[in-house]
């Protein structure tokens, strides 16, 4: 999939490019609005990541312009100015999602995945994990066709996030940013992820061993899928 990254902070643009290339996206980078405006006029993209705070261009104007030439692309707004009005305006103008800086790269990828699933209408998105089946569309976990209803919404979010980044170690920080990102509180080192994982293991163990949910010592957690 083709991604256009419009970001005036070169160091950040570079990291986005490295990360997305790793996830098999084909990336192009623009550091200013003028070149981005030229680029969208000639090329077609699947994803356009756009920083609203460009020095030479009104971000929302650029979004409008890009939408005219690339109507099928998915748009994700990246901004350091996390004003709610911008958010409403951005989403009104047809952006598909919105990420406030600083954001986790994993979060960006999960948003892009979600958009892809939505756009291509993937149904029965079922992942086989040992004796378990995880249905990412209906958000249920089953064991031999028996639904494990004890798993809460939060716990499912954690499992789904780990599945999305399968075979990679996801740190506790990345996990808590995903599930508690919008909560503002003054704890900066919480280990409540461990408590959640403990609960998940306990609930699943009643049905079968969740070997696929691995603890990476001192680092975080990983869902292992042999494909």
């Amino acid at each position, binding site marked *: 999939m083709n991604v256009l990254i419009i970001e005036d*902070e070169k*160091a*950040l643009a570079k*990291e*986005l490019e*490295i*990360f997305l290339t*790793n996830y098999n996206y084909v990336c192009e980078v623009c550091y200013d609005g003028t070149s981005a405006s030229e680029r969208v006029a000639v090329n077609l993209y699947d994803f356009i990541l756009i920083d609203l705070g460009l020095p030479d261009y009104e971000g929302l104007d650029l979004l409008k312009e890009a939408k005219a030439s690339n109507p099928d692309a998915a748009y994700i707004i990246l901004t*350091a*100015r*996390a*004003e*709610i*009005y911008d958010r409403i305006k951005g989403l009104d103008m047809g952006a598909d999602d919105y990420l*406030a*800086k*600083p*954001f*986790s*790269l*994993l979060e960006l990828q999960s948003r892009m995945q979600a958009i892809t699933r939505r756009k291509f209408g993937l149904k029965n998105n079922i992942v086989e994990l040992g004796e378990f089946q995880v249905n990412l569309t209906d958000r249920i976990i089953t064991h031999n066709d028996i639904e494990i209803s004890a798993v*809460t*919404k*939060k716990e499912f979010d954690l499992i789904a996030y780990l599945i999305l980044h399968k075979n*990679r*170690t996801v*740190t506790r*920080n*990345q996990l808590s*940013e995903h599930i*508690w990102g*919008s*909560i*503002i*509180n*003054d*704890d*900066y*080192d*919480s280990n*409540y992820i461990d*408590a*959640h994982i403990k*609960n998940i293991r306990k609930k699943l163990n009643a049905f079968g061993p969740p070997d696929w949910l691995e603890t990476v010592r*001192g*680092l*975080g957690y990983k869902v292992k899928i042999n494909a």
Partner: protein
Amino acid sequence: MKLRTKLTLFNAISKLVIVILFVLLLPVLIKNININYTDSRLRKQRDEVLQTVKNVGIKYYIEDGKSYAGYTPIKDVYVSLDEDTTAENLDNIKNEARKVEADTIQYRILSHNFKADKKKYLLEIGISLDTVNERTAPLQSIAFMVLVVMIILTILADQLYSDYILRPLGLIIKTKLIGQKFPNFGSYKQVETTTDDFHHLDISIHEMIHTIESTFQKEREFISNASHELMTPISILQSKIENMFEQEDIADEIKGRLLEMQKILNRLKSITKTLLLISQIENDQFLKEDQIRVSSLLQEVYDEISIRFQDKNINYSVEVRDDFLLVNINKFLLFNLLFNLINNAIKYNHENGDIHIEASHENGEYVVEIIDSGIGINPADIPFIFNRFKKLKQSLQQDSFGLGLPIVKSIADFHRIRIDVASEKEKGSTFKLIFPASLIGR
């Protein structure tokens, strides 16, 4: 006491003192005036008699050595003229009794002796003192009435004038000082006055408010700009660390250290985000258009926070006695307010401790109480717990930076929610949120 009341009181008291003084002095004064008047009448009479004697001769009054005496029928005035035997010259006025026919009457008598036709004569003219005093009474009452009327008039005039002249001061107090939400004073409107002092006061207050306001504004802008500016470098660092972490050729030991860096960066990020949130709240950048039942809001907070009860095995209970509907609120902010209060109740609680939430409508107040059985707060510290970055001595070595309660306070102020804190050491704390009627829906 108000300035106007003080002035009125002084005004009335001073007038009263004047009235009393005057009433005390009046009889003496009037008497004196009367005596003076009587005396001058006596002298006029004397001069007339002397003039007659000079023009016509003593014979007009006295013939063949007889003395002359005359009375009016009621004996209020009497004149006598007689040969005088005393040697010295007489010309005085004094009060004396005279026997006239059967009555003894007090007279004010002018005695004067003079020579005529080589003989010495004594002239006496008297006016009865009763007559003099008869005039005193009506004079006194007239003077008293005039005085009362004048005093009432001056009190009224004083009152009206002080009202008029103090009106600008009242306006300054009413429009500039009372009922203004600090530091949002709104626009300046000059108070009309011709009194320089009030004008000066008005301008000075305005200038002080302006200075305070702009200082606040600058501080808010600074926090807002600083935290915004910090977001981009934090974002770059975070991305770099995440990318490095994913690289396959990196040893686990390095990964561990990258994780440490991520944690520290996370701390920086939390502080910055929190400061930004507070400044956004203070800059009124949030809408208040949501509504939610208090039970639903508490349920949402529970869903997010329940995992945190596990570690300390905390017994959490909620009692919604009155499930009121909150309107004109920002749900995101109120959620964070409750989350932070309950989170604190967990952090400062003991193992197997209790947290009890109560929502009720009592005595016309809509209240949510968060009651914990934690370590409590020193009463002397309670006024400071909402200060930014304030870490109280007792606060444990927790992974927090002292912005939890400042967020709570900012959100509460934004919604005009009052917070009452009660606490007892080692017994626990109660945070009481009192919602204004404007946030309660039907």
